[in-house]
């Protein structure tokens, strides 16, 4: 059992040298690349589909503008996930300066959790920075013959639908399906039939084979070949078409326009950073940013003329907004909780 002494010492030496090497190689945290160390850093938490427009265009454009005006650039770091997920992260203390959310309800939650004090509703367009309608994506050639939301309830269809518990887009989708069923029954019988709309949601949810955490995650699953249909933002469909995915977009007769607010997380913003964060929020409503959003298939909320520029935008016959349900203050408890969570999902 006993080894010759020098041998043991030798091995111990090798061991210690290896540990020292490891420490010097991997002991220090990496530094953030490409940072302009003079400029301020704005931390943005965005809901899933904001990524391309922000990272490829909006951030560089704002940083350049700030450099022209103030002589120093701005660094951005960001995290993207489902709207409810990022809201929960911020409420738990994630270091966001700005949140761009899929639904105003999350802005309301941030206010209740004292993460934000500012009244986004007083900013231009009630703090909404862009919008996009909810549509259906199907496989090339539309083999299942889907024409509208009601067709998603046909037995045996496999639907991908993000999870309304974590995704704002999923909540918009529920409202789109429910609202369009109300409008349809209203056109046929003269009065909105809530029982029929509920039945549609119930039948449709039976067809859901997967409910991913965000709209973007749902799209990835659909792109990888799962499911016959996906309810999502028009923007996602246009981005997929642009990327050459073999999909088709089905435009429902009646659908909702999702509206996305940007909120300053006042709790995390110190006095020195306040002006640049405020300028960034204002920039999001500027003509420059709005035109950029249109380029990335979001629709402008400040000027409908900008939307003419994007020839891909579909014409929606019967568009509606959250106001149809009396705003988020009513839509969330009445429809997402009262109908979807209580009578559809947990049935």
């Amino acid at each position: 059992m006993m080894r010759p002494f020098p041998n043991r010492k030798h091995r111990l030496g090798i061991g210690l040298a290896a540990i020292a090497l490891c420490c010097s190689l991997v002991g220090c945290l990496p530094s953030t690349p490409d940072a302009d160390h003079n400029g301020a850093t704005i931390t943005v938490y965005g809901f899933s589909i904001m990524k391309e427009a922000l990272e490829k265009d909006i951030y560089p454009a704002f940083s350049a503008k700030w450099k022209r005006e103030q002589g120093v650039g701005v660094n951005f770091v960001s995290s993207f996930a489902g709207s409810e997920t990022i809201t929960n992260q911020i409420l738990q203390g994630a270091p966001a300066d700005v949140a761009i959310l899929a639904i105003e309800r999350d802005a309301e939650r941030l206010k209740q959790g004292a993460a934000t004090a500012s009244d986004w509703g007083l900013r231009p367009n009630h703090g909404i920075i862009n919008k996009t309608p909810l549509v259906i994506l199907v496989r090339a050639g539309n083999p299942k013959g889907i024409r509208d939301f009601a067709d998603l309830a046909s037995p045996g269809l496999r639907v991908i639908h993000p999870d309304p518990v974590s995704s704002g887009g999923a909540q918009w989708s529920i409202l789109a399906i429910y609202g369009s069923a109300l409008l349809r029954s209203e056109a046929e019988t003269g009065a909105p039939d809530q029982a029929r709309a509920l039945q549609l949601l119930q039948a449709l949810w039976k067809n859901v084979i997967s409910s991913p955490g965000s709209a973007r995650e749902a799209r990835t699953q659909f792109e990888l070949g799962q499911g016959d249909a996906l309810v999502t933002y028009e923007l996602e469909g246009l981005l997929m078409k642009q990327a050459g995915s073999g999909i088709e977009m089905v435009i429902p007769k009646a659908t909702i326009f999702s509206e996305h607010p940007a909120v300053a997380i006042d709790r995390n913003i110190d006095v020195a950073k306040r002006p640049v964060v405020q300028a960034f929020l204002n920039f999001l409503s500027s003509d420059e940013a709005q035109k950029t959003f249109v380029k990335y298939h979001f629709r402008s909320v400040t000027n409908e003329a900008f939307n003419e520029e994007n020839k891909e935008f579909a014409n929606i016959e019967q568009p509606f907004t959250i106001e149809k349900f009396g705003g988020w203050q009513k839509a969330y408890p009445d429809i997402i909780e009262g109908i979807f969570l209580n009578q559809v999902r947990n049935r």
Partner: protein
Amino acid sequence: MSANLSGVRHTRGFDLVKPLSITVIIAVMLPLVLLPLASIFIFGTSSGLDKFWAALMAPEAIFALKLSIVTSFWATVFNVFFGLFAAYVLSKYNFWGRNALIVTISLPTAIPTAVAGFALLLLWGPYGTLGRLLEPQGIQIMFTAAAIILANIFVTFPLAFGVIKPVFDTMSSSLEEAAATIGATRWQTFWHVTLPSLRGAIVGGALLTFARSVGEFGSTILVSGNLASRTQTAPLYIFAKFNEGQVEAANAIAIVLALLSFMIFSILFFARDWLEAD
């Protein structure tokens, strides 16, 4: 080394059981482990090696890999030292509550990693039990690299201990007693007698802890903040890229992690023989 069993013949002539059983092992592993691993490599390199290389060299990807390695390294250092100490104490002394302590150390194995992350947030988060007291001092632990290390420590807590403890248990106490009779101090005994026979277990425990930490996802996503080039580890980067639909970029990093764990377990396999050789 045990006796060479392959020399013992149960049947006369050609032993059909040997190739057959090897085939069964591979056939079972194929759909469960080998093909899924292979598809990562195929998918990651399907659009050319230059694209794979570009995905790998993206600053965010490099940062994520570095962050994973650094945070896993410190979690490993802590857990190996603690595991060694705890295994020593718990096998040397018998006391009331000893078994309860052993069970508690092993507990993180069975706890879902998301729960681990959530628990850390509830304790160290800005509104957590302890975090609330640190917040006014300007100390923030959650959503920093420290949070990732804490999550790694929690999740891999039992691993090094679990590898080192059985070696202590089976270690003959006669050697330590012999050392004591020739006048060695407690520390000398530990350093010259106990520790050398533990080298294999320490290296094994360390590599296991490190490998598990590098792959940790469930707790990290909750406590790190998931900011690209700030607090995004390699597994979070993979998940983010997958969610964005950039499956190739996700696969490039997945390949690196797969190769890393292949390396770790190869070292584990060969280094143990070397360290334990007499």
